[in-house]
């Protein structure tokens, strides 16, 4: 519990980080959104179909667009509206569905960007004092390749989980086991059970790699494999505390989802209504990002309270090299 609240405290003390990752999310999504706007605008042309689409859902036009869409255009479906978007994304993830190539490319770029920033984020939360922009990016750069190696290992593990374990659980075992069941409730409960099993495996991998990243940055480790094995030891020896903290954060996530389900804006109206809804949606995304940072911050706090002390990091405070002119002035 102390680590949970400590995590939120560290987030509040570094609002720039939250704004920074939000900006990154926005910047990486923007080019695709501009492309999508172009696709929609081209299709609407100067037609009157735009009148209906400007103030709400013109489903007839929407279906016509969908029937002609290719590539990224195929992602423009009614599932993008309000809470359906979140439901669709989580469902697609759990059901192992693939994204279109442009979206997959954006996701990959996003994950690489996060990997780069993660070093600076963990370093800042660990030090618990301002490091300035230069120091932040210096830390990010310093730890990037180590974190990248961890990310590659993580992608191999996750890839195996989805390609083999998920496939075996949901496309083979579940189908074979429930194919002869005549009560949908029972089939659904089996699916939920498998979601739980698979979700547990994802969480275990997720937790281990989280602490691997933390140990790599906080202890200034050079070996990604070393950080990984150290993380496994750490998690195993403090299973209860690690699990408890993760559970607290997960419950917070569920509460956020429930709130979002209630307040998610629909698709009616244009003008002020539309942009108000967009603003509310951005606030929700900001909250999700905060929660993402909370996972990192609280786990860092837990690690430091277990094996070190608050603000401990092995690496010296990153200093941006001064320019030759500045040296001359000195």
């Amino acid at each position: 519990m102390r680590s949970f609240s400590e995590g939120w405290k560290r987030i509040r003390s570094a609002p720039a980080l939250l704004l920074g990752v939000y900006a990154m999310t926005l910047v990486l999504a923007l080019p695709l959104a501009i492309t999508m706007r172009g696709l929609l605008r081209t299709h609407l042309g100067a037609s009157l179909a735009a009148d209906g689409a400007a103030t709400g859902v013109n489903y007839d036009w929407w279906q016509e667009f969908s029937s002609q869409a290719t590539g990224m255009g195929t992602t423009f479906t009614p599932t993008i509206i309000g809470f359906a978007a979140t439901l669709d994304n989580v469902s697609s993830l759990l059901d192992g569905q693939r994204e279109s190539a442009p979206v997959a490319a954006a996701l990959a770029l996003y994950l690489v960007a996060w990997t780069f920033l993660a070093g600076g984020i963990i370093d800042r939360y660990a030090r618990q004092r301002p490091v300035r922009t230069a120091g932040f990016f210096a830390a990010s750069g310093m730890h990037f390749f180590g974190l990248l190696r961890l990310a590659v290992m993580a992608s191999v593990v996750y890839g195996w989980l989805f390609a083999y374990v998920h496939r075996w659980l949901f496309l083979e075992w579940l189908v074979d086991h429930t194919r002869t069941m005549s009560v949908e409730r029972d089939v659904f409960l089996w699916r939920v059970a498998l979601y739980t099993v698979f979700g547990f495996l994802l969480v275990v991998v997720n937790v281990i790699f989280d602490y691997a990243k933390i140990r790599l940055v906080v202890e200034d480790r050079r070996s990604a494999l070393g950080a990984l094995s150290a993380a496994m030891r750490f998690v195993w020896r403090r299973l209860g505390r690690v699990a408890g903290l993760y559970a607290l954060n997960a419950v917070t996530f569920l509460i956020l989802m429930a709130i979002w389900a209630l307040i998610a804006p629909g698709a009616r109206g244009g003008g002020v209504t539309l942009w108000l809804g967009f603003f509310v949606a951005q606030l929700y995304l900001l909250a999700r990002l905060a929660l993402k940072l909370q996972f990192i911050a609280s786990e860092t706090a837990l690690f430091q309270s277990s094996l070190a002390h608050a603000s401990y990091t092995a690496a010296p405070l990153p200093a941006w090299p001064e320019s030759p002119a500045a040296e001359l002035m000195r």
Partner: protein
Amino acid sequence: MAAIIGKIRRVPFDSRSGHPDLRRGVPHRRTSLFLAAVFAVAAIGARGQGGSDQQRGSDSQGGSKDPPLRVVGVQTHDAPEPGARSPRNANYDIDVRLDHAARTLSGRQTIRWRNTSARPTSELQFHLYWNAWRDPNSTWLRERKMARNYTAPLPDGWGAMDVSSIRLHEPSGSMRDLTSQMKFIASGDGNPEDRTVLSVPLGLSVEPNETIQVELAWTGKVPRGIARTGFIEDFYFIAQWFPKLGVLEDSGWNTHQFHAPTEFYADFGVYDVRITVPSPFIVGATGRQTSRVDNGNGTTTHRYHEEDVHDFAWTASPDYIDLTRTFTHPGLPPVEIRLLMQPEHRGQEDRYFSATEAALTRYGAWFGAYPYGHATVVDPAFQSQADGMEYPTFFTGRARYFPSRTRQTPEMTVAHEAGHQWWYGMVATNEFEHAWMDEGINTYATARVLAEAFPDNRWELRYFGGHVPWSSPDVPFSRLDNDRMAGYRDNAEADVPATPSFRYWPTSAAIMSYNKTALWLHTLENHLGWPVMQRVLSTFFERWKFRHPQPADFFQTVNEVSGQDLTWFFDQVYRSSNTFDYGVQDLVSERRDDGAYRTTVIVRRYGEATFPVEVVTTFTDGDQITEKWDGLDRRAIYTYDRASRVARVQVDPRRVLLLDTAYTNNSRTLDPRGGEASLGWAARWMVWLQDLMLTYAFFL
């Protein structure tokens, strides 16, 4: 006189039950006298016809002989009783036993069949539908593999139907065994491994209007739920389960092999069926239950009877919740609705009943009253493959454990299948060749029912393996969506609708039969107006109920009732695969030296199909000009000199032509809001993308 009577090949008849009396070997005395009188009249009349009778009486060597005495103009005693709605020329008396442990049926049936065609026949042809799932080499399974998402049956999931004996009642009263002469035929694709059509040479000629009686013994291996029939756990839905006669038409036997994209075709008759199942099972079936007998050995025999139907299906399960409600409506006869419900769908019964009642009310008012007085609705088990299917007086719906929050299920399905009682059940079209005549007309009518009875319908999707529903209140599901516009656009050119349905490409067969037909019927309604359209359909129904109409009969009815020759329309929508696409090519409004505006409107026919459309030009001062374009040329140009600039132009603004595959290009405005609309929707899409990014950020 006895010799004359013997020639007719009558069989013993029990006048009390109305069924063949197989216990007796001599005709009923009163009936014999009646027939004798009839024959006497016929014989006297035949003497005046001279040569033509002698010609009919010629034997196969070309010589003449006394014509076989047949009842000309008067039906035999097993022909329709006064008040019969249909010809009743294919009557089935069936005993069937379900072996629940072995998943088999064993049956005996007696068929009384009257040749209602204009040609004699010396064979019978039967459908053995369940042989479509006997092995992977059947025509049905070969065609299904061409479609998406094919899954082979489980090892215990195959079906089969085997006729162990067939015997013909001779005029003398003896039985002639025809079993050794049975053979499978595949007149469609010549597939020697397809065993869905059985031909049985009779060794004699059945002349027009003559009746024969045959007895069959057969067994069936119940398949695991496939194509609306089969079992899953303790749930059985049994359809196409007995050897069923094809239809003898003037051109010969119409007994198609069972194809993946098609359904069925049979003659009307009386069905009397005794179904023996384990006693705990609740049974529902076509018709009314007339008796229920506990056999004392753990089984119960349920007897069902129905007249003037062309098929019989049944269901059995120990888990059903059995509910009844009576439909009443001023001006329509009451109907007792029996609902057999799955326990896990309890709470959705009102939705089933209200959807059935909505169909009974509107179809009854629009086309004609439902005459049977009862209907059984089945809520099928999950994964039974029995959902959304129709049989006479008996049909299935579709419900989910997490109830739909819209009207998609069960209302849409139930209203559609109830509607099939008219289009398929009473107007008994050939579903092998003209599936559009039942599916398309019914889809069109169902869409109208749903728009009236359930106008609040919304788009819905299901997540997490298709279980959890989510709908957006902002995305309406309109009548056009119920006409299935969405699927049509992608497949508009897939086939020529006039192609016999069994030759449609498997993945787009439904689009042709359901979607495209509903859309052109709705277009026709827009063109003629609903009052005329309603008269067309009610006339067609009244004229062809309990008969087998062809497409030409429908088109003729449309032309007759509308008072227009709409052949040009049917040439476009039915006899070709051309698509419709009208649009605005250009819109310019140039200011002249005198301050007025010269507006040029260029509209274009992008598609190959043609239809007359309106072109409405609106000016900034509010004035409108409507042009009627016959739509034949590739282009039409309209020029206007007006004080005001043009605001917008629309081709077919009233959306008469629903088959236009690209309606967006039908309009153009000089003050477009495409930028605003695309910005808003791109912003909403970006939120989805950001949410997706954060979801994948879980992995970091």
